[in-house]
């Protein structure tokens, strides 16, 4: 069941009613049953994997709590992390590695006795595995106590708003919320509905419309010129933001309606003035997870190497981020490019800050606008590796872009016009939120007429400009 499916629009209101009718202390059971129903609805076998990860994590976190020594805790932590990473590696990387070896041997005319493997990636596995690892590490570091009720742990790892693509939540935020008595709060429900509505706008009006253009160009790179590829690559960054940002808002809104507070996943990334700022605004739940469980321990271990220890930690962190996204070479390169951007910024940090302060650049509009554009272009350029289907395609995109000839880009008037309208509305809202958060209010306006008019306007745009029938989000593949 996907957020944009009709099934979900029937399932969710019904669930919300049953949830609030259920007596307070049993509500978690309603949520747990609903979450498994939601996930089984995608593919029943996938539920076995999440329950396996849950069982292992439950047993080991309980054991960690009981272990007397620090080394005992660490050993149990490592065993659980290895165990729960096995299914992720098997489904996500085994086939790619196996097929890679096969084709390598094939090119040297050596035959391999194993058949080529094609496995269906269990959607959400990368997300709930990371949540389970985070929980295990937190228990091992004695930052939280292990949860005694296996049902609560099962709900944490299968909570339906988050299971498909996050946000990658933390146990210390979620477990207490599932356990406490939640009273119906209409203000929260209204906020949740507004978040969902805007999420649907981002996904159906902006992302899926732009996606038509991007798919047309990237689906047939050989037939398109460099200018079309520049345009499609820039548009892909916007599509990805609107798709994943939209998904995240629907997830956060859904949870909010159920009285559960979930962390923000995007914070207007296209207003970032540097790549390091960009990564504090983009897929925040993944980056903060990587910061806490990979970057901090690594940079701490290598701190005596000063800035070079930090650079090493940044590179490894983004390499893992790349591998997390996919097993192919393109994602490894993508991760290393992000790591290089951030390393360069880290190495020049002091000098840049001094220069900016000396010339008061951070207060100059032209400098801010230019920095936002450069950041956006750098990110879009790196995303060629995220969008192209393999390394050959990615290299072909670059060679066409850098051919030095400006062509007339591929035109699809209707798609481009609707994409432009959707994107402009999205950016106007983001601009307001970034620089004038208390002005020009629409959804939050005190005047009931303006408020309702804006709801209807967004619903109208979704119905009139929205692209229906896709029922998939880009991040389901990760």
């Amino acid at each position, binding site marked *: 069941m996907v957020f944009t499916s009709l099934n979900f629009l029937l399932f969710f209101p019904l669930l919300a009613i049953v949830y609030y009718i259920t007596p307070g202390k049993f509500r978690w059971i309603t949520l747990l049953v609903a979450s498994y129903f939601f996930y089984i609805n995608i593919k029943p076998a996938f539920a076995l994997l999440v329950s396996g990860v849950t069982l292992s994590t439950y047993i080991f976190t309980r054991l960690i709590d009981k272990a007397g020594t620090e080394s005992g805790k660490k050993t149990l932590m490592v065993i659980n992390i290895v165990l729960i990473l096995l299914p992720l590696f098997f489904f996500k990387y085994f086939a790619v590695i196996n097929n890679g070896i096969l084709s390598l041997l094939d090119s040297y005319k050596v035959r391999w006795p194993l058949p080529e493997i094609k496995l269906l990636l269990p959607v959400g596995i990368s997300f709930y595995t990371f949540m389970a690892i985070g929980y295990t590490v937190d228990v091992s570091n004695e930052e939280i106590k292990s949860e005694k009720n296996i049902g609560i742990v099962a709900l944490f790892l299968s909570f339906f708003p988050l299971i498909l693509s996050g946000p990658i939540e933390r146990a210390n935020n979620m477990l207490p919320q599932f356990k406490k008595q939640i009273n119906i709060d209409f203000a929260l429900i209204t906020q949740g509905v507004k978040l969902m509505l805007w999420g649907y706008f981002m996904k159906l009006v902006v992302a899926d419309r732009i996606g038509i253009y991007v798919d047309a160009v990237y689906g047939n790179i050989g037939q398109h010129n460099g200018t079309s590829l520049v345009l499609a690559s820039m548009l892909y960054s916007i599509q990805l933001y609107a798709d994943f940002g939209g998904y995240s808002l629907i997830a956060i809104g859904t949870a909010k309606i159920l009285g559960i507070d979930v962390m923000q996943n995007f914070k207007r990334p296209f207003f970032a003035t540097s790549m390091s700022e960009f990564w504090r605004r983009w897929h925040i739940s993944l980056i903060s997870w990587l910061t806490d469980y990979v970057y901090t321990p690594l940079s*701490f271990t290598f*701190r005596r190497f000063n800035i070079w220890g930090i650079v090493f930690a940044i590179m490894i962190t983004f390499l893992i981020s790349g591998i997390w996204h996919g097993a192919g070479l393109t994602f490894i390169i993508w991760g290393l490019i992000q790591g290089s951007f951030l390393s360069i910024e880290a190495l020049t940090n002091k000098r840049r800050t001094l220069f900016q302060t000396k010339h008061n650049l951070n207060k100059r509009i032209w400098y801010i606008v230019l920095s936002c554009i450069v950041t956006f272009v750098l990110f879009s350029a790196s995303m060629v590796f995220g969008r192209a289907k393999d390394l050959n395609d990615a290299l072909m995109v670059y060679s066409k872009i850098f051919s030095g000839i400006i062509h007339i880009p591929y035109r699809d008037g209707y798609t481009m016009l609707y994409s432009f309208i959707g994107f402009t509305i999205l950016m106007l809202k983001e601009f307001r939120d970034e620089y004038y958060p208390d002005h020009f209010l629409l959804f939050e306006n005190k005047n009931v007429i303006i408020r309702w008019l804006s709801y209807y306007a967004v619903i109208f745009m979704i119905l009139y400009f929205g692209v229906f029938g896709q029922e998939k989000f880009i991040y389901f593949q990760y």
Partner: protein
Amino acid sequence: MDEKSIMPELEQVFRKVFNNESLIISREMSANDVDGWNSLNHMILVSEVEKAFSIRLKLKDLNKMHNVGDMIDIILSKL
């Protein structure tokens, strides 16, 4: 050693790391209050604190440092 005796030295470390000669630290001060106190400079700060007080911190200590006050308590516990 007590809090009063380590404050001037700790302040010097902060001034050096954040390149701000007029920076005055307080127990309640956290990353949000100091320009440039990000995850990058945090590790440099930790490393400089270790050097200045000749102590060795653990990753666990780092997780407990939410503000300058926490940092002072951890330093004092190591001296």
